[in-house]
């Protein structure tokens, strides 16, 4: 037994000793990256120092570690930097800049195609078209990177992190800004997106389609053109994210379309035009969120059903909940705190004795005649709301919180 261990140990040592280091810099033996890639054997480490100007992208075809020591790779507006076409590749501590844009190819600072076990850590990608573009790859770690796109409109910008048909991806602690979509996932399953900051992107902070069994936790999505869109997916966990200041006619903190069996917990929605927009969503648990100072806290279309909305704080929203259909299909609101609630609690159990109807008459008026939003907080608005609460005609009577809380819930 001991011999086998010894053999293994020696075998590991020999493997380790085989992995060489190749230093690339202006005064080194190897001066260009091409040469280093030619000389490299699998599992070697290439160390880069200085500035490199590229005319075409470098293709990695074997397991390699590429580590920068204050290295800058400049695409001169003509090309991306790395095309990864091999398993077990690490790229670390680099600055990649100026890919320029292309309407012909999906030009990315780092392209990952059909490769597994890729790590991209501490890379700064500045003025790129796509930042990282990965397709049909598995087990990718993208950590502590910084992406700053150059786009000014949807047509000349691309996505910061673009994942297509990937699996088991970890996106952790990245900062993405000024791209078209900050983070884009399509057909990407079993992934985790944690503690990223996606802000000032032209379209969505995160765009998420046909991607199941994913979790995104603790991210911040701020001031994006249209907020975050999650579409056609199931079994998603969204926890402790912050959605803030997504302003505009079609801007949503969180846009949910055809999502089912998912959890939306302990998120913070603040100052969005629409906090949560739900279309054809089924069996969602919306629990323990803080929804504060939004134009519309929630908008629900009639096709959403069987959703549970409970233990949330609805604070100082211009409108709480809005739905144009009379039949609100079994979406259950209970035990939420509403800052507009004016009921009383005689038995002191912290649950109001009068049901709360979060949809007001004026919300209906604004949905039908949208310019009347300019009458917000007028005496007329209050009069309309009072009239409707006495004789409800147009607002859906089933849209009701039967057990509204008297005090806001303290979330941590």
């Amino acid at each position, binding site marked *: 037994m001991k011999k086998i261990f010894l053999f293994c140990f020696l075998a590991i040592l020999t493997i380790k000793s085989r992995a060489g280091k190749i230093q690339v810099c202006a005064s080194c033996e190897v001066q260009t990256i091409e040469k280093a890639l030619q000389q490299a054997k699998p599992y070697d480490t290439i160390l880069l120092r200085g500035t490199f100007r590229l005319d075409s992208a470098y293709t990695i075809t074997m397991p390699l570690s590429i580590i920068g020591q204050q290295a800058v790779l400049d695409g001169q507006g003509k090309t991306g930097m790395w095309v990864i076409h091999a398993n077990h590749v690490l790229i670390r501590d680099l600055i990649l800049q100026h890919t320029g844009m292309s309407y012909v190819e999906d030009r990315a600072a780092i392209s990952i195609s059909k490769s597994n076990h890729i790590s991209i850590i501490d890379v700064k990608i500045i003025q790129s078209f796509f930042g990282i573009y990965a397709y049909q790859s598995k087990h990718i770690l993208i950590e502590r990177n910084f992406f700053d796109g150059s786009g000014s409109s949807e047509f000349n910008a691309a996505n910061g992190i673009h994942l297509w048909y990937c699996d088991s991806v970890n996106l952790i602690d990245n900062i993405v800004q000024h791209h078209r979509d900050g983070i884009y996932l399509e057909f990407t399953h079993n992934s985790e997106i944690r503690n990223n900051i996606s802000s000032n992107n032209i379209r969505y902070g995160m765009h998420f389609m046909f991607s199941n069994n994913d979790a995104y936790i603790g991210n911040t999505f701020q001031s994006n053109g249209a907020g975050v869109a999650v579409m056609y997916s199931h079994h998603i966990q969204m926890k402790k994210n912050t959605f803030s200041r997504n302003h505009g006619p079609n801007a949503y903190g969180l846009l949910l379309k055809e999502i089912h069996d998912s959890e939306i917990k302990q998120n913070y929605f603040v100052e969005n035009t629409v906090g949560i927009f739900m279309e054809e969503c089924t069996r969602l648990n919306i629990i323990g969120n803080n929804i504060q100072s939004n134009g*519309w806290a929630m908008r629900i279309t009639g096709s959403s059903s069987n959703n549970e909305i409970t233990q949330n704080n609805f604070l100082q929203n211009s409108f709480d909940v809005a739905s144009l259909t009379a039949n609100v299909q079994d979406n259950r609101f209970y035990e939420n705190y509403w800052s507009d609630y004016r009921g009383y609690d005689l038995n002191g159990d912290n649950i109001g004795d009068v049901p709360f109807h979060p949809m007001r008459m004026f919300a209906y008026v604004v949905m039908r005649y949208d310019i009347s939003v300019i009458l917000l907080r007028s005496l007329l608005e209050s009069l309309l709301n009072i009239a409707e609460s006495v004789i409800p005609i147009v607002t859906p009577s089933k849209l009701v919180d039967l057990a509204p809380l008297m005090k806001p819930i303290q979330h941590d």
Partner: protein
Amino acid sequence: MRKILQYGFIDLLRSKWMMGYGIVFFCLTSTILYLIGDFKQVIISMMYLVLYLIPLLSVILGIMYGYQIREYIAWVLSHPVSRKNVFMGYYLSLSLVLIIYFLIGMGIPFLIAGVLHSTSADAFAFLLIAGIVLCFIFSGIALWVVFGFDHKLLGLGMGLLIWLGMAVLYDVFFLIAVIAYQDYPLEIFAIVASMLNPVDLSRILLIAHLDLSALLGYTGAVIKSFFGTNGGLIWICAGYLIWLIIPVWRYMHITSKKDF
């Protein structure tokens, strides 16, 4: 004019009605602050008081005071004093006293609660500005009514009607117009219509800070540039300036010709 202003000011400052006005504000503000606590929510509640109670009370108190001093003014005018100075002096003293009691009544509870160190400091400042301007405008309207109608009840009714019109009826007609002409672009109409009414103008000034998210949900470039940039603020200031001038100008015009 300084003498008139001085006497009118002290006279009004000692008036029980005016003190009551200040105390009402003080009590309401303190109660709401105590009950709700969150500054933004309190400011939203106070907004209704500022937008609707200040015009109402300014009109009622102004008209009551105006009819009270009408005969005295007629007596003052028999002396060698300038008409302009007398009437301007009374207008200024009325509006200044209303403003002072408003500032004391609403400002002190907020300051004690520490609004300046909160994120709602700017909304609070706009609330004060709106209140001050409305005091000026509606005390002007009150005095204009007083010297336009010789009969006290008629004047009071007229004052209330003006308040009701600006606070509610105007918006009702606006909404009817919006519904009737929904097929047409109404953005510019909506903004101009809101500028033509001082209550709506103040409301827009405040909701631009409190409900920006909802306002920017409207699809339209005019609304977006009006509320999204500082351009709107300039228009609101211009509207305020016009509204500060009109009642006073009418009041001075009527009184300069009036035969007592």
